[in-house]
């Protein structure tokens, strides 16, 4: 309990959203890969 209070609010804040961050980065990765796929398809057909 005492240990938790010594953490700054900023640190507590950051720890608690790591899962969110990873999730959205995975989403971003999906967007990037799918976009790249269609881009390559388009260029190959040109």
């Amino acid at each position, binding site marked *: 309990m005492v240990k938790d209070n010594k953490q700054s609010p900023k640190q507590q*804040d*950051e720890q608690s*959203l*790591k899962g969110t*961050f990873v999730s959205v*980065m995975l989403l971003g990765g999906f967007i990037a890969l799918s976009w790249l796929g269609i881009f390559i398809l388009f260029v190959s057909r*040109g």
Partner: protein
Amino acid sequence: MHLHRLEKIWLVFGISMLVVFLCVIGVAAFALGMQPPSGHSHSIDPQKVNETPPFDNPRLEQIGENEYNAYMVAYVFGYSPAKMEIPLGATVHFQITSSDVVHGFEIPGTNVNLMVVPGEVNHYTHTFTEPGEFLLLCNEYCGAGHEYMATTITVK
């Protein structure tokens, strides 16, 4: 407004990714010539297509060593000229209009995919690097015979 540090990072990453996409497609379009169909405005009286050159005589016309203009008309439910034979490796500048309703003009397996709008002439250039019998079909609903509106282009 309070933005969590990780949200800031995410948005910077996300927006940067979008900027990269925009730059790639922008450069491809304006510097490398990979534009969507229609570079310049080209109007035509939709009631007079069959009397307006060059659409009064739809045809494939050689204009260079391996370069052609294809003057085409889309109508319910076909294309004119109905059949074309294109030499392998030729670059074809399609110019197409409609004498009635909006049609599509799609060659599956290629990037030739454009809208044919009455009152306008659409332009698209494609180099046929593969031989074969290419399907050319209308992909914009135009009426009862829409699914019959197709032909083939021979490249050899």
